[in-house]
């Protein structure tokens, strides 16, 4: 039997995504549903988790009202992400702009800036952070900048901000390898004709940055924001993930752990949704202008 070419085309498409569909049901959807059921149940028998009774949102309520550890840890992860993400974006953008210039040893710098990515969120990195390497890397610069005289001059408010900056800067930089390369690829795709036209019209570098580079880069910035947020919330070293893994595998509170992980995921989803709405508006506006 010969199929109509239109049907055939659709069928071929489905053959290609078939592995994903199978994988989705096996390794994603069924665990997902099971995890939701667990989060609204109580288990009496640990083996095979057979005796489940529905208890509604008890675990969710308990997380916010009864658990003294949950909220501080959750807030910690949220603050870290909300502070680090803009820092990662700004620094990787600056570095990418510098690397996109015609400079010597560009290859060397690009390779170096990507190196910490190899440590990623692996155990080696967590050991290094535990030993305080991120502070050691900046201690020299910090001592140079924050001498006692300067501390007195600028007052404790500024000193705190600078302190906070130095305590985060190393980890921020070490996490920006992928973002630098993505920004770089975006910068190189902007047509040189645009820049030339602007220079002919006597635009300054400053104008060019705000009126050409930044608007053209909004889709890439969006991509990087999403990547950074997902990367930071999925980091196995972060306090929340450690917390619910411990609850689940060491303390055997499987249902509560499932509820915690859902609260966590829903928060990430809401945050990404907000980013999406916000960026959509900006992208539409810049497109409208152009």
């Amino acid at each position, binding site marked *: 039997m010969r199929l109509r070419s239109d049907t055939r*085309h*659709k*069928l*071929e*498409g*489905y053959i*290609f*995504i078939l*592995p*994903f569909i199978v*994988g*989705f049901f*096996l*390794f994603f959807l*069924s665990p*997902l549903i*099971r*995890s939701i059921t*667990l989060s609204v149940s109580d288990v009496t028998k640990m083996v095979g988790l057979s005796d489940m009774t529905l208890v509604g949102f008890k675990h969710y309520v308990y997380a916010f009202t009864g658990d003294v550890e949950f909220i501080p840890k959750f807030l910690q992860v949220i603050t870290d992400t909300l502070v680090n993400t803009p820092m990662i974006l700004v620094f990787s953008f600056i*570095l990418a702009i510098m*690397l996109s210039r015609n*400079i010597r040893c560009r290859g060397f710098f*690009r*390779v170096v*800036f990507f*190196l*910490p*990515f*190899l440590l990623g969120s*692996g*155990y*080696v990195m967590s*050991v*290094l952070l535990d030993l305080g*390497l991120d502070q*050691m*890397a*900046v201690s020299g610069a910090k001592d140079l900048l924050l001498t006692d005289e300067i501390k007195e001059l600028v007052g404790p408010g500024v000193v705190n901000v600078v302190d906070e900056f130095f305590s985060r800067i*190393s980890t921020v*930089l*070490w996490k920006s390898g992928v973002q630098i*390369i*993505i920004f*770089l690829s*975006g*910068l190189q*795709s902007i047509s040189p004709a645009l820049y030339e036209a602007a220079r002919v019209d006597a635009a300054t570098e400053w104008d060019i940055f705000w009126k050409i580079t930044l608007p*053209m880069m909004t889709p*890439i910035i969006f*991509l990087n924001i999403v990547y950074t947020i997902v990367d930071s919330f*999925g980091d*196995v070293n972060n306090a929340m993930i450690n917390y*619910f*893994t411990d609850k689940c*595998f060491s303390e055997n509170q*499987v249902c509560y752990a499932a509820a915690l*992980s*859902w609260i966590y*995921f829903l928060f*990430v989803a809401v945050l990404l949704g907000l980013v999406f709405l916000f960026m959509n508006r900006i992208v539409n506006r810049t497109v409208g202008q152009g």
Partner: protein
Amino acid sequence: MNTTMQTLLKKGNALRHKVQLSRIFIYVFLIIMSYMFLYPFLYMIVTSIKSQADLFDVSINWIPSGAEWQNWRAAFVNLDFSAHIWNSLLIVSVCTLGHILSCAFIAYGFARYQFPLKGLWFVLVVLTIIIPSQVIILPLYLTYTDMGWLNTYLPLMVPCFFGFGLRGGIMIFLFRQFFIGLPRDLENAAKIDGCSFMGAYFRIAFPTARSSILVCFVLSVVWHWNDYYEPVIYLGKSSQWPLPAMLPTIYEKYLAASAELTTNADSIITRGVLMAAALLVIAVMLLMYCVVQRQFIQGLEHSGLSAE
């Protein structure tokens, strides 16, 4: 005439001066940044050859008084390197192969074909990127227990062949970008010459995606090599563990040793041994990166993530 020339020249000189200054600033900034990015590696290398005396000597920072290779031997033994390196290599190579085969295949379907519910399926791909795998780790564990896959490498490897595994969604996304940017002419020509749709993919599209394959290869190797979270959960016997999973034990020994402040025993884990072990864990990955770095960075840059 002469005076206008002179003023023009002066202006030109001033401009060149300004450009030169901004260049110097860029270089200084980039060099400081390179120091920051290289710091963890330099620190690990230098510390790994420090003797115990050097470690306690605050005046010795970057240049140790001599190389203590004993650290490396101790790290080698403590990691049980010769046994666990094979576990790591096996897991990583099979998982990476699975990612390359499956993610490119799936992505090709998304890039080249129009079919009902395509939008929905792609949203689901994005969803698998966004949901941290830790959210479903327990039900997954239960599923694998039912399948009898516990204490084997199957839970780590099999999902990779279906576009799942560690961040499979990102790989699908990367390959899709590549195939969207690839002109259809070659495949169409092949089809006219009687090539089947599978042939067009395997003989033409897939081999053309060399740069994306390399990017996927490096990302997949790095992510799987560093992963100690899943192996420790699925593999009960520590003899099956990959290299990074051995590091926590050494770190605990180090912490215990430094808390007691004992300096006499020979078998003690010093910071030098710890750093040597850390380097041994990432050594193969570093080597791989050094070999392919140029093509990899270029591939990632040209992965079709354009600003349009």
